[in-house]
């Protein structure tokens, strides 16, 4: 057979190295510090921070898994009024960044906000001092809000799974006489487990690294401790130590889950995949199914989006549209687009390499490339800075041979640094999504093509590329939305005079003038909505 796939292995290892470098730099920072921080942390911080982090992760995990799986099963397996619209609307909360959701709900549910004011009017109280609801600023409030915006990370892959490979097994179990409940517990859940695990891992890493919503809602997670250590005590090594410990925890959790799933393989045979035939629901059960699917859309998207639209409208009337907002929207979309193309391309190489050249190196590369998602954004950016400025100095050195006045800091000054940060951060989504697509291609296809004389690159071009087109598109859309929402790395690594919608919004939020940021917030949601809708429609169920 021609070709050994060594090139693929090399490419995968290079990509993994690019993603690993910032983590190595962080480890270097961590090693520079003493361990003097830890007695203080152990005594005063860790018990509470670990407790809050555990509640947050467990709570968000349960909510995203339940909402994501149940709604995906209802949309894929049943027919009821509103199913088509709900099917794509269920993905919309992805377009709303967690920090915007927290801010919106703090306003909506505040004692002087619309909900409680209405309640007081109805109940006949005149002042919030006489009657008010419990504060949402708590770890439980945070769990609920994050759960309702992050569940699409589970919903999308699970629904995609039901829509394609699950159909045969589901049809079989129905034919064999299993009722809906039995089918759900005995077939649907076990089948969906890998997809649920992948989605949950993404959602939990988002929740763990969230700093915006946690700050709004007064939740003290480990991530908050990282910031306090770094910013207030100027102790970057100490902060890096905490970040590395968190990273180790995340990595071991992911490994435990993978180990537990080892040996289970779901790739179907080479026969044509059949669409799942849906059971038609009538009467009360149809209404119930519609309500179950509408609730997450309402809480995670419709209410905060409507609130933002209202705020933005008032702002436009009061002060007009900020003139530069369209430029910022353009820059946001352009940066996100470039990063998406790069991340999808690299994700494709990373997930194809272990098939074209099965080796420990290619498999390790696939795992390592996802590390960037497990580190808080600012900390990752801090780890990237030395990598990028080192490369910049080399580039200037080389250019200096050819021209006087060689440009300095070309990567940092051109936005390439930011693209690198986005790609490192969101490669996990690309790799995860495309890998899931790859596993659905039976290995026998690869073998057949190879035995017919195709090189590894030929297999990639003629088999993998066409057959993973859908999962590439899905991963790309997810990455795009995440780039549009990304704040901390953008803030630190963007060039002079470049503002994205997220940094604009942050500039307003940081000085407490949220209302001035509402137009930018709305635009983030609107720009994110389009790809999310496309993404969701793409999964035909």
């Amino acid at each position, binding site marked *: 057979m021609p070709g050994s796939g060594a090139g693929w292995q090399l490419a995968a290892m290079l990509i993994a190295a690019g993603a690993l470098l910032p983590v190595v730099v962080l480890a270097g920072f961590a090693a520079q510090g003493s361990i003097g921080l830890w007695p203080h942390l152990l005594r005063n911080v860790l018990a509470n921070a670990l407790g809050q982090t555990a509640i947050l992760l467990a709570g968000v995990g349960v909510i995203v898994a339940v909402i994501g799986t149940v709604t995906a099963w209802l949309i894929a397996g049943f027919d009821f009024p509103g199913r088509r619209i709900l099917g794509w609307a269920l993905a919309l909360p992805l377009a709303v960044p967690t920090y915007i959701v927290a801010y919106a709900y703090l306003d909506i549910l505040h004692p002087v906000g619309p909900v409680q004011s209405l309640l007081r009017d109805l109940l006949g109280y005149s002042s919030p001092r006489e009657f008010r609801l419990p504060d949402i600023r708590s770890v439980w409030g945070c769990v609920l809000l994050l759960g309702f915006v992050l569940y699409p990370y589970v919903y999308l892959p699970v629904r995609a799974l039901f829509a394609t490979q699950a159909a045969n097994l589901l049809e079989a179990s129905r034919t064999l006489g299993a009722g809906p409940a039995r089918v759900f517990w005995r077939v649907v859940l076990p089948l969906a487990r890998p997809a649920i695990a992948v989605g949950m891992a993404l959602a939990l890493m988002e929740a763990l690294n969230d700093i915006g919503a946690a700050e709004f809602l007064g939740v003290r997670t480990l991530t908050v401790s990282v910031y306090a250590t770094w910013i207030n005590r100027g102790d970057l090594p100490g902060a890096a130590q905490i970040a590395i410990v968190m990273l180790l925890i995340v990595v071991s959790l992911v490994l435990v889950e993978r180990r537990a799933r080892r040996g289970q393989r779901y790739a179907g045979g080479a026969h044509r995949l059949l669409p799942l035939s849906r059971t038609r629901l009538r009467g009360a059960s149809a209404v119930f199914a519609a309500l179950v699917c509408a609730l997450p859309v309402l809480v995670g998207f419709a209410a905060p989006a409507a609130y933002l639209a209202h705020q933005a409208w008032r*702002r436009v009337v009061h002060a007009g549209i900020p003139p530069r907002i369209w430029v910022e929207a353009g820059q946001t979309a352009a940066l996100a687009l470039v990063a998406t193309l790069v991340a999808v391309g690299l994700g494709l190489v990373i997930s194809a390499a272990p098939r074209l050249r099965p080796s420990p190196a290619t498999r390790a590369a696939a795992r390592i490339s996802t590390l960037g998602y497990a580190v808080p954004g600012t900390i990752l950016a801090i780890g990237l800075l030395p990598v990028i400025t080192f490369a910049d100095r080399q580039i200037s050195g080389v250019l200096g041979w050819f*021209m006087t006045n060689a440009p300095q800091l070309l990567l940092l000054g051109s936005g390439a640094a930011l693209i690198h940060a986005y790609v490192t951060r969101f490669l996990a989504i690309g790799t995860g999504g495309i890998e899931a697509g790859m596993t659905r291609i039976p290995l026998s296809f690869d073998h057949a093509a190879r035995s017919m004389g195709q090189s590894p690159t030929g297999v990639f071009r003629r088999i993998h590329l066409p057959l993973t087109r859908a999962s590439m598109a899905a991963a790309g859309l997810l990455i795009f939305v995440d780039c549009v929402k990304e704040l901390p790395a953008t803030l630190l690594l963007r060039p002079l005079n470049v503002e994205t919608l997220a940094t604009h919004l942050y500039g307003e939020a940081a000085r407490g003038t949220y209302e*001035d940021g509402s137009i930018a917030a709305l635009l983030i949601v609107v720009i994110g909505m389009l790809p999310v809708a496309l993404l969701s429609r793409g999964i035909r169920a």
Partner: protein
Amino acid sequence: MRGKLLGWIGTALLAQSAALSAMANELNLYTTREPKLVEPLLESFRNETGIEVNTIFLKDGLPERLEQEGAASPADVLMTVDIGNLVDLVDRGLTRPVESEALTAAIPENLRDKDGNWFALSLRARALYAAEGLDLTSFEYEDLADPEWKGRVCIRSGQHPYNVALTAAYVTHHGVDATRRWLEGVKANLARKPGGGDRDVARDIMGGICDIGVANTYYVGLMRSGAGGPEQREWASAIRLILPTFENGGTQVNVSGAAVAKHAPNRAEAIRLLEFLVSDEAQKIYAEANFEYPVKPGIPVSPLVGEFGALTVDPTDLTAIARERATASKLAEEVGFDN
């Protein structure tokens, strides 16, 4: 295909170097002050001098970025808030001293570095917001721990730089142990978990969650000016602002300030910007658009800020407060202030 790509890269590089060599009459500003706060100042600087200002608004990590950029850094002027951040820039060797008659004449001695590394440009005070109906005319920071206020106090995170600076000031007045007891007392008085921003204190007082709270002065000016819309006027009308003092001292103030970067490629322009920022014109913008206290003696505060009464600045040396920051941050964790 390949030739085309190379050609394209070459053009991009040429454009970039052309842009760099045309840098005369330009300067680059790294700021942690929010764009809306610096834009009016830069606008009038441009009009007066014809110098274009390229800006990047950063938050955490400004010193890290400068450090990594090293000698290649395009940064000319560094603007930030909080004395700790200014001292930090100097300690890391990221600034270069400036000798300027205009600056030393305009800024009182205690509000600039004696070596000319940093210069304060405006002041803000850590104030008390009190519910409109309360019979309260004066207040001491020490009182925040008084059990009289049990369940009635709102404040943002104890790890926020504004509160870290207040706690650090407390340490310079009373020492570490008394500060720990004070923080414990304040924590016991909290009506809700620390969090949100300073303006939430006003809103939460209006919402009946608390009776008093700690926040910066300029937010009240912003809210009362109506720039944020009518509903914020309502929040501000629910509260009264009191300038608290330390038992044997004055009101805790913090600064916003600027420095010239060590490797500034446009040093002359950078110094011109600093000098402009202490001109009467710029100091008036600080007072009237940002509702801060100008550093330059003789520039009047905004009428909205004048209503707060005379400001008696606490005499403690600002750099002494900056040195207690790490202690203050640790203390907040020790007493579990934010938990």
